[in-house]
């Protein structure tokens, strides 16, 4: 009796081992993506966004999210699931965002996050591209008599968000100018705005797009201005977990597709009619030539769906950033062919 139980246990263990080995062997070679499988099974893309930054990711009164960061999530959903609306948004503070991603609570982080070496290399994350080129700036009161960062003097107090690159840039900047300053760092953007608005600090520093967006929340937006200088590079882009190369490629090329579509003049209204275009690059974009989707386990119309349902980068920018009055001028976020620095590798 005892012997037979022992045998069964041994057999059980051995078969378990075999199954485990089999899985390990199979997983290494094929183009399987666990995140992609899970996303298809769940029926929605798990996307981390901000707690409310107009233009980037902001929820309206009925809880519908919009913004250029949100459009990245929508593009991934359109490519993977065929419906741009199949996204579950998780609002995250600056502090929570990376833990949420590495722990698997979300699969894409599109939350105006600056691409830096230490974030990319150190904490299990991979940045897939840049969807907004930003830079850190300062906001002051118009009547303060401060017209440039050169007017800052010892003793100035500066409000910002904690857990951001701005907190570090601020120190670098004031140190390089040899200015003693009082740093006041809040956890939430709303509280930074309130404290600055109340007069607790003389200047408010964050990404310039953020300044422009938050200015609309002040009790009297016209009393404030953004100084002309930019003190840092802030390339903002979507982030994925390290270790799932296929998923990483899907998110990267979803973003690239939007930018490339603008470059070739393909937009949400003309995309389907361009299937017979003479330009092969356009045909690849709308899925009438090549088998590009197969490379990451998607059908051939994935890019067409992105353009039709979400639009190209220019449409997204115009709708969320320009028409809302946040930054009417595209500045560096213009195509390389039009004097900007948006340049993506070709989709072929």
């Amino acid at each position: 009796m005892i012997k037979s139980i022992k045998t069964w246990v041994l057999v059980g263990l051995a078969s378990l081992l075999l199954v485990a080995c089999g899985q390990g062997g199979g997983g290494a070679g094929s183009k399987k993506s666990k995140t992609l499988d899970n996303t298809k099974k769940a029926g929605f893309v798990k996307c981390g966004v901000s707690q409310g930054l107009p233009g980037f990711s902001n929820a309206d009164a009925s809880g519908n999210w919009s913004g250029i960061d949100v459009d990245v999530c929508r593009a991934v959903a359109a490519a993977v699931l065929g419906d741009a609306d199949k996204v579950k948004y998780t609002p995250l503070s600056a502090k929570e965002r990376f833990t949420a991603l590495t722990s698997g609570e979300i699969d894409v982080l599109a939350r105006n996050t600056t691409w830096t070496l230490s974030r990319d290399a150190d904490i299990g994350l991979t940045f897939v591209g840049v969807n907004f080129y930003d830079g850190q700036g300062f906001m002051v009161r118009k009547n303060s008599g401060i017209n440039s960062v050169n007017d800052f003097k010892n003793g100035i107090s500066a409000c910002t968000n904690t857990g951001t690159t701005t907190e570090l840039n601020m120190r670098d900047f004031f140190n390089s100018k040899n200015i003693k300053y009082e740093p006041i760092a809040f956890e939430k953007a709303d509280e930074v705005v309130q404290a600055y608005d109340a007069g607790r600090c003389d200047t408010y520093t964050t990404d310039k797009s953020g300044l422009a967006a938050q200015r609309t929340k002040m009790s009297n937006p016209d009393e404030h201005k953004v100084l002309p200088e930019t003190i840092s590079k802030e390339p903002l882009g979507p982030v994925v977990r390290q270790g799932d190369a296929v998923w990483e490629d899907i998110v990267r090329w979803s973003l690239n597709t939007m930018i490339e579509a603008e470059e070739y003049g393909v937009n949400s209204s003309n995309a389907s009619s361009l299937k017979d275009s003479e330009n092969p690059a356009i045909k690849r974009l709308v899925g009438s030539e090549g088998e590009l989707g197969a490379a990451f386990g998607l059908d051939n119309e994935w890019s067409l769906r992105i353009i039709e349902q979400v639009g190209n980068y220019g449409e997204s920018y115009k709708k969320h950033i320009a028409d809302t009055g946040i930054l009417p001028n595209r500045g560096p976020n213009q195509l390389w062919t039009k004097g900007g620095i948006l340049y993506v590798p070709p989709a072929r």
Partner: protein
Amino acid sequence: MNLKKINIENKKIKDLIPQALTVLALLSVIIYFATNAQINMGNRGISFGFGFLNQEASFDITFSMIEYDGSYSYGRAFLVGLLNTILVSVIGIFFATIIGVVVGVSRLSDNYLIAKVAEWYVEIFRNIPLILQIFFWYFAALRALPLPENGISFNDISFLTIKGWYVPKFIWTNFNIFLLSVIAALIAIYFINSYATKQREQFGKQLPTITISLATLILIPLITFLFLGVTLTFEYPVLKKLSSTVYTYEGGVSIIPELIALALALSMYTATFIAENVRAGILGVGKGQKEAAASIGLNKNQILKLVVMPQALRIIIPPTTNQYLNLTKNSSLAAAIAYPDIVLVFAGTALMQTGRAIEIISITMLTYLSLSISISMFMNWYNKKMAIKEK
């Protein structure tokens, strides 16, 4: 005889087995989760380690009691946050105790107005969530303060503004000698008091201990000023113009509004609970005790000091210990209003910059645990001291 011994040993083993099994089960659960976390972190390319504590922090902190700037390490930043947490807790506990005792005694006052005001205070402040009170003091109350150029001036040596409360800075020479003299004075007072107690117990003599103690505390340090070269001067804050409409104060010490708001909110909130403890303690002393004390000729003050309070304290101390612990833990809400406590500095900024969530959160949890246990141990010691000593 022998049989009994074996039985006892058997019983011991029987008692031990379930306990040992429980410990074993608990350990295996912990090990299971730890290995799981390790494997998961390994899979995601996250390393585990505390080496980051020696790396340069490269972020600045508004308010620090020790020398600090971004060129110091994360370990140092941790220390800054810890000290700030301790500072606001100590200030909070101090004022919560004072307000609590005053309000608690006032609730028992014969004066209708005083009793009612105290009652309303307790009912209002204990029933509003603490985080809202913190926001109230920070955003509503402090927003009412003037900008630096119109600061509320106290005799032109101290100014209260929205950017903080600027007070004169003490500049000492030979501070060590002064400190030693204060310690010497305190030791002297201890011996004077024990001598006075002996005198009272043996000969029934009442010595004016309070007067003597105060005199000692003033006289001994005063000698250091007169003969040992100790000096104290003040640096006063002076208004400074930064640009056409931006002002600040230079010199002196700035007590940041975040600290004021947090300490205010914590002490006002916790005081309500302490007040109720005090009231319960006083009511818990039997009426007969007071009457008996009066009958042997003690006056009202003596009754309170010698009969009521020692008994009331036994009821007051244990629940008040809880309130002190609560206050310390509640101080972690500081992060909401940018007071650089351990949660904001270490579990906030440092966590963000290093991405070492597990390490940093466990350090922070251990820190709060040690803080709470220290307070607990101190209060237990005090409680024992105050407990009935059976002779």
